[in-house]
């Protein structure tokens, strides 16, 4: 079923991204309500519409923002350093999505799924470096990505 969003919802979405990039933390519902002159229920409805449209991901049963792809609002196994600021990505793909989104250089450190030495790679001048022959495993087919986006 198609989700109906409003232009103002997408302005909120962009502010969420800008705040995450600037601070590493997602804005709270109260912060969004104040920033956009909304009541708390109206801000909550806007976030819910964005969640339903897959424009961001809320914590289950909460108004807190968990993901704004490729960014994670909580620490993950994929740490992306840009200009000495640490951001977190949701997965290996998203670790490259952050410099792709921001069109910038980045140093990335990924925790190894088997507990081996961490893997480090970087984007410099639009090129992937130190990637060696590393492989990314996508567990779920595209048609299932939004069934459980946290697990995906």
């Amino acid at each position, binding site marked *: 079923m198609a989700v109906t*969003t409003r232009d103002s919802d*997408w*302005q909120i979405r*962009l502010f969420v*991204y800008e705040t995450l990039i600037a601070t590493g933390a997602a804005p709270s519902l109260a912060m969004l309500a104040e920033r956009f002159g909304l009541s708390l229920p109206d801000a909550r409805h806007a976030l819910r519409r964005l969640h339903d*449209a*897959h*424009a961001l991901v809320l914590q289950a049963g909460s108004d807190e923002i968990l993901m704004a*792809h*490729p960014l994670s609002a909580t620490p993950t196994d*994929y740490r992306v350093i840009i200009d000495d600021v640490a951001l977190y990505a949701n*997965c*290996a*793909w*998203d*670790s*490259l*999505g*952050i*410099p*792709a*989104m*921001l*069109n910038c250089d980045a140093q990335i450190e*990924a925790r*190894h*799924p*088997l507990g*081996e030495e961490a*893997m480090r*790679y970087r*984007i410099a001048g639009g090129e*992937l470096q130190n*990637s*060696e*022959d*590393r*492989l*990314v*495993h*996508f*567990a*779920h*087919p*595209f*048609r*299932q990505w939004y069934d459980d986006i946290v697990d995906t």
Partner: protein
Amino acid sequence: MLFRSENEIDKWRRRVGQNRGAVLSLSQVWALARRWYHDRMSPAYRGKSSAEAQSIFRALGLTGEFWLAPPA
């Protein structure tokens, strides 16, 4: 999930009981990331349709059932 080899992928799959999905090189994933996320900070961004996603996959040679969109 990021790995150094196919052997590592198989070891991890056995450990967690995960079926094999799709495996791409990190270089392929960088190409995918650029096409998927380049417009995410645009004020005009309004999400990505399944058709747009499929177009990106096809452009990168990602075909087959794994990359098919869900039924409309």
